[in-house]
């Protein structure tokens, strides 16, 4: 009990420190640094909330960009009549509703089938909106006229990132989190022990979607002009999953750590050498899956010792083979 309380105190302190640092950033950082931090916070929110459901249950959803896009379009359509805060909440609500409908259709599938279908549905939504805009409203994209100040956007996305981590901490300590873990370990066993898995999965998927929707609603104002191909960009969904996996989708801090690493890497490499950025991404994923399946957050001193021993054993084996050959 005291162990779990200590853990809670530690996690809360880390979150507090992170929040304080991010809060202070706009005061001294350059425009470039703040913009980089914003992207970073966006991925902290997306990956942490993704891991909350998908990481623990191992339901690999590729639908993040669908929810993100839904949020972005909510802002484009309703920011003028509703205002900033309502439009964020509405974006979350609509995304969660879509997630419940989508989840009811595909959450009984596992593994590849689930991943492929969520991706298919994302594409379906994207093309449906493109079609609707072209045929019915007669536009290709939308211009955002009312845009809040930079600091408002920054603080909103920071708030969402902090909330995503805080909700993850809370869920981990609650029965709901235990149910999610049980689903990830052995869904049928969890069911026979009394977990209403259908309901738990729908709720988890909806929470993930609500965050992506809210983030999309907040981030859309960064582009003054949006069209379906920018905001439903599947890359947003892929990158969320990559960050979560590399950081450690089953861990609390992994997604946050990886989001920071990624943002720095992205800004450092993308502008000068975009191909190298994509290659670095791929390489990092391969390495982490092969040698660090628990993600960056599972990195410990002993991990390095393990790698060294493995490498030495491999080198010895190589030497031995040569002697035989």
């Amino acid at each position, binding site marked *: 009990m005291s162990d779990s309380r200590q853990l809670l105190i530690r996690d809360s302190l880390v979150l507090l420190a992170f929040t304080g640092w991010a809060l202070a950033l706009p005061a001294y950082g350059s425009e470039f640094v703040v913009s980089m931090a914003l992207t970073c916070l966006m991925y902290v929110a997306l990956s942490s909330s993704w891991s909350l459901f998908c990481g623990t249950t191992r339901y690999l959803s590729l639908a993040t960009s669908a929810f993100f896009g839904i949020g972005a379009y909510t802002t484009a359509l309703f920011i003028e009549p509703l205002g900033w805060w309502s439009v964020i909440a509405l974006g979350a609500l609509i995304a969660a509703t879509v997630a419940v409908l989508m989840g009811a259709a595909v959450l009984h599938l596992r593994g590849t089938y689930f991943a492929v279908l969520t991706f298919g549905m994302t594409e379906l939504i994207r093309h449906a909106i493109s079609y609707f805009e072209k045929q019915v409203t007669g536009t290709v994209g939308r211009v955002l006229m009312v845009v809040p100040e930079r600091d408002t956007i920054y603080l909103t996305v920071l708030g969402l990132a902090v909330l995503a981590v805080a909700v993850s901490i809370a869920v981990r300590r609650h029965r709901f989190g235990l149910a999610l873990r049980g689903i990830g370990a052995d869904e049928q*066993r969890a069911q*026979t*022990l*009394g*977990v209403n*898995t259908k309901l738990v999965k729908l709720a988890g998927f909806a929470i993930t979607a609500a965050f992506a929707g809210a983030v999309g609603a907040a981030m859309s104002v960064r582009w003054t002009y949006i069209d379906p191909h920018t905001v439903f960009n599947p890359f947003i969904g892929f990158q969320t999953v990559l960050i979560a996996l590399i950081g450690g989708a089953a861990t609390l801090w992994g997604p946050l750590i990886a989001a920071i690493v990624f943002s720095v890497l992205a800004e450092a490499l993308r502008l000068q050498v975009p191909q190298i950025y994509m290659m670095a991404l791929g390489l990092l994923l391969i390495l982490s899956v092969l040698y660090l399946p628990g993600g960056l957050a599972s990195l410990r001193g002993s991990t390095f010792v393990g790698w060294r021993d493995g490498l030495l054993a491999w080198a010895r084996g190589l030497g031995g083979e040569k002697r035989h050959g």
Partner: protein
Amino acid sequence: MAEALLLDARDITVRFGGLVAVDTVSASFRAGELVGIIGPNGAGKTTFFNAISGVQAPTSGQLVAEGRDISGQGPHRFAAHGVARTFQTPRVFGEMSVQDNIGFGLSFAGRRREAPWLLRDEASILALIGLDHLGHLPAAAITPSQQRLLEIGMALATRPRLLLLDEVAAGLTESEVEAMARLIRRLRDELGLTVVWIEHAVTTLLRHVERVIVLHQGRKIADGTPAEVVRNAEVIEAYLGDEMAETSA
């Protein structure tokens, strides 16, 4: 002992495509009974278990638990009505500690059910199944026979009225089987549980249960005391042969 029906399975049929795995089997289980289910490989024992624990929805037939028709509902509803089961291959949560594996059932199906003194918390359940010294270990780190016991503990944590045991003695040594049988008897005697026990090793089972149901090719061919069943001509012919003759001799 009250003669209330805990679970009443009426004309349960489970069909997989053209294969009829369970063919209109009816069976009822009373409070405090210790019942065995036997049958050769492929007789439909486990499929029948899956059906009466909600894991496999029957193609037709009715399941009435504590007077309520719960056919077609999810396994969590069965658990809520006091039906608990183990799996043939232990399905413990390997990454969680032994104690947390017990805690899982207590947090869900067991949460809303009345708690007998022996099943009051993790520690008491661990003591009951004899794993109290292993509570802190990850469940993946204990031996397969200990995992068998943990499976039973996880089921007990749902605070059931009916416990379905799927080949819990398979692969155990002679003395472990005896210990398992003693535990099962104790659960029945001290908790008043109804226990339904599937076992492949017929002789073991017949020694310990009071009633036996025999399945053959998906159908129920006998239902009675071990003494009656071993004399049943259809049973002897269908499957038991030599093994059964030894027991009755």
